[in-house]
C-alpha cells in the first residue's frame, strides 16, 4: 500500500510516496530528482547507487524507502560546498585523474566519505577493501585508490 513517507535527505525533510517495497533509489531518482545515485544493477552488487544512511555506506537500491524514516540520508549532491566548488574527496579524485566514464563515481565518492569518517588515514589495503563494493569498469582502480589514500597523508606546505 502506497503511503506518504517523510525522509531526511541531505538535511531537508522531503515527503515521498512509497509502498512497503519501494527502494530508496527509486524515490531519490524518480521523485526527488536526485539522479547522482545510479541504477547500475538494482540488486545490490555494483555499488553505483551507494549513499550514506546515518553515515554508513548503503545500497540505495536495496534500502526500503519506508524503513529510512527518521534516518539521515546523504547523497552525492550534498557534498560540494557550492555550485562551482568541490568537496575535498571530489577534488582529490579529479587531481588523480581517477574519473573516466563517471558512472560509478558518485558511489565511489560516498564510499570514500564513509571510510574517511572512521579512518582518516587509510592505507592502500583499507581503501581497496572499502571500495570492494564499488565496481568500476574503466579505471582499473589504481587512481581511485591513490587519490583516497592521498587524502589521509599530511599535506605539504
Amino acid at each position, binding site marked *: 500500500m502506497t503511503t506518504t513517507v517523510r525522509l531526511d535527505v541531505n538535511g531537508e525533510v522531503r515527503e515521498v510516496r512509497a509502498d512497503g517495497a519501494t527502494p530508496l533509489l527509486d524515490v531519490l531518482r524518480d521523485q526527488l530528482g536526485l539522479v*547522482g545515485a545510479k541504477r547500475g544493477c538494482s540488486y545490490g552488487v555494483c555499488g553505483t547507487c551507494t549513499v550514506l544512511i546515518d553515515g554508513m555506506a548503503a545500497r540505495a537500491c536495496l534500502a526500503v524507502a519506508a524503513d529510512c524514516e527518521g534516518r539521515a540520508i546523504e547523497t552525492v549532491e550534498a557534498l560540494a560546498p557550492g555550485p562551482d566548488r*568541490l568537496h*575535498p574527496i571530489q577534488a582529490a579524485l579529479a587531481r588523480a585523474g581517477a574519473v573516466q*566514464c563517471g558512472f560509478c563515481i558518485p558511489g565511489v565518492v560516498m564510499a570514500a566519505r564513509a571510510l574517511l569518517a572512521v579512518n582518516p588515514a587509510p592505507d592502500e589495503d583499507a581503501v581497496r577493501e572499502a571500495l570492494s563494493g564499488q565496481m568500476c569498469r574503466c579505471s*582499473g582502480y589504481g587512481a581511485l585508490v591513490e587519490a583516497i589514500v592521498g587524502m589521509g597523508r599530511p599535506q605539504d606546505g
Partner: protein
Amino acid sequence: MDIETVGHAGAERFAMGQSVPRTEDPVLLRGEGRYTDDLDLPGAAHAVFVRSRVAHGILRGIDTDAARSMPGVLAVLTAADLAADGVGLLPKTVSLANPDGSPARNPDRAALATGRVRWVGDPVAVVIAGTAAEARDAAEAVTIDVETLPAVVDPEAALAPDAPQLYDAVPGNVVVEYRYGDAAGVEAAFASAHHVTRLRFVNNRVVVAAMEPRAAIASYNADDGRFTLRMGSQGVFGMRNSVAKVMGIPPETLRLLTGNVGGSFGMKSTVYPEYPCLLVAARRLGRPVRWTDERTESFLSDSHGRDAVMTAELALDPEGRFLALRVTGVGNCGAHTAQGVAIPHTSNVVKNTVGVYRTPVMAVHTRVVVTNTVPVGAYRGAGRPEGNYYMERLVQTAAAEMGIDPVALRRLNQVRPEEMPWTAASGQVYDSGDFPAVLSEALERSDWDGFAARKAASAARGLLRGCGLAQYLEATAPPSPEMGGVRFEADGTVTVVTGTLDYGQGHAAAFGQVLSTRLGVPFERIRLVQGDSDRLVVGGGTGGSRSAMASGNAIAEAAAKVIEKGIRIAAFALEAAEVDVEFDRGAFRVAGTDRAIGIMELAGRLRDGLDLPDDLPATLDVDHVFSGAPSTFPNGCHVCEVEVDPDTGAVRVDRYTVVDDFGVLINPMLVEGQAHGGIVQGIGQALMEHTVYDAEGQLLAGSFMDYALPRAADAPSIAFASHPSPARSNPLGVKGCGEAGCSGALPAVMNAVVDALAERGVRHVDMPATPLRIWRTLAGG
C-alpha cells in the same frame, strides 16, 4: 574549482603534453552528469522488452491479448508492427568475401524476432505502458509459443556436420571463411623449420558490462515529422545514419543526441533492436517512450566480446629466428551479424599477431560462425589483444622449448628502429617505434633481475611465483574522415565540434589542449560539442583507438585554417598587407612592428560588426573535415609477476610494470588512465571472467553474482612509463592508447601464470585461469 594543478604557470599549463585535469570531472563528481536514464522527459511512457527464454526454436505464435488489457498498457509491438510501419532489417556488418569471391552470408535480422528465436535474450515483443512497473507486469503476461530446437553455443561445435543450423541462408553456420597470406609459402617454411611451436587457445567470451546499462528515449514531433533519439553511443553521426536507414527515413529527419555515456568499450557502437522499436512506439503513441536495460537483461542483450578458438604456430630456425607464423581457427559472432562482428576473428588477427617481430611470412585461415548465443561484437581491442596474446604466448613457449632465454629470443627477432618504415608480414607498414629500447626500459623498471630472489621468497611461503613478459604491438583503426569545427561564439567562448565521442576518455581536455596550443585561445573558454547529430557535417565516431588521431588532427588542421582566415582579416584590421601578418601564440602581428591583435580580440571585433570588404571571410569559424590517416602502431612491454597458491589455485597479481610507446602524448594523465583500465580489463579476462553457457544455451554466468568482474582488491598497483617514438603518419605524431592495455595484459598475465606453474610441468593454461582451473591443472585433471 578546487583542482589546483602543478607545474607550468599560465597558458603553458594547458599546452599539449601537460596532465590537464579533465573538463568533465567537476560535473561528474558532483553527481550532475546526465546519462540517458537521468533525463526527465515529461509524459514519457516506459518500454519493456519480452525476450526469448529458449536459445533456439520456431516461433509459433505470440499472444499479446492478455498484456494489452493490463493496467496502463499503451501498446504491445511485435515484428509485424515494425514491418507495417516500414522498418527494415538491422545492419549487416560483415563485408568480407569468402576465398571464392562470394560475399559473407549475413543473415536477415529484423529488430524483433521473426520465424525463429535464436538466443536466450532474443527480443520478441515490446510492451509500452505508463509506468515502468506496469510495463514489466504486462511483459510477463505476453506468451511466446516456441517449438524448441537443439542449440549450439560453442564455435567449434557449430562447424560439425550434424550441428544445429541457425539459418537456411547460412549453410554450415559459416558467415564467412577468411584467408590471408601465402599459405603455400608458410607451409613450405614450416616443413623445413628446425622447430615448430604450436598452441591451441580458447579466447574466452567476456561480458562487456559497462557500468551504465544501455538506455534510450525516443520522441517524435508530428508537426515537422522529425524524430529525436537520446541514447548512449560512440558517435552520433554514424549512429543517426544507421538508425535512419533501418527506420526507412531520411537521415536528416532524425536527431540523435548523446549526453554522458557510462562506458562502452565498443559495445554501444551498433544499432540494437531496441532503438527502432522505441522510435516506432513514439510515433504511434505521440509521446516520448523511454527504456533502460535491467542489468540481468544487459547480460543477454548487450553484445559480448572475444570468443574464438585458434591454433597458432610459429616456425623457427636453429638459432631461434622466426620463419613463419600461422593462425587457424574459428570465431563466434553469436546469433546474428547486426551486433555480431567478424573483424576480431579475421582482419584484426592478421594485423595484430605478428607484432614487433621480423617474420617473413604469415597465413591466417579462420571461419566466423553463428551460434545460439548473445551476438559477439567489438570489445576493447576487438582482435588486437587476442592477436598479441597468441604471439607472445608462442614466443614464451618457443623459448622454453628451445632452451633460449625469452628476452634474447625477442631481441633476436625484433624489428630495429633503423629498419623503419617496416612492412610486416601482415602487410602493415610500421612508421616508427624503438622496440629494443622499450624492452630494455621495461626490464629495468620491473627489476627483472630481482625476480629470482622474489621467487625464492615466495617459495619459502609455499607459493609459486611466475614472471611474464609481453611485448605487444597493435594496429589502431585508421582514423576515418572526421570533423574539426571551430566556432567563435557570441559569449566569448570557442566551440570545438567533432564527431568522435567521449564515454570516459576525457576528450574535452585533450581536444582543448590541441586547440589551445595551436591557436592560443584560452583553454577555459573552449567548449566541446560532440553529441548532437544536428551540429555535425561528418563524424566517424570513436572506436579502434582512433580519437586522438581523428579528432586531434582534425582540430589541429582546423586551427591552421582559422589562422589562414585570421591573417586576412587581421591584415585589414591592422591596415597591413597580408604577407606582413604573422600568427604567433594567439596573436596576429605585423612583422617588425608592435602592431598586433589577439585572436580572441579579433573574434570580438568581428562579432561587434567590423566592417569588412566583401572579399574577406566574415568570421573566423571553420568547418574542416580531416581526410583521415593511416593506422598507428602503439606498442610497449608489459611485465607481470604473479603468485599462485598451489593449495587453492588462487592467483594474485603482485607486480605490474608497463612501458608504452603511444607517440606524442597530448595529456599523459589521461593516457595513463587508459593504460590502467585496459590492463585491469585484461587481467579480468585472463584470470576471472568466465562466460559460461550450458548445452541448452542458457547463460549460467548471467549476473554480477555469477560473473566475476575485477574489483579494487583484484587489481594491482601499476607502474606506467612512456617511451615515445612519435608517429610519422599523422600531423600530431600521436598513436592510439585506448585498447593497448588489454593487448599487453592478456599475454603478460598468462605468461606469468604459466611461468609460475612451469616447475610443475605445466606448458599452457587457458583463460580464464580461475582458481578451479589452476587447481585442476596442478592436480593433473
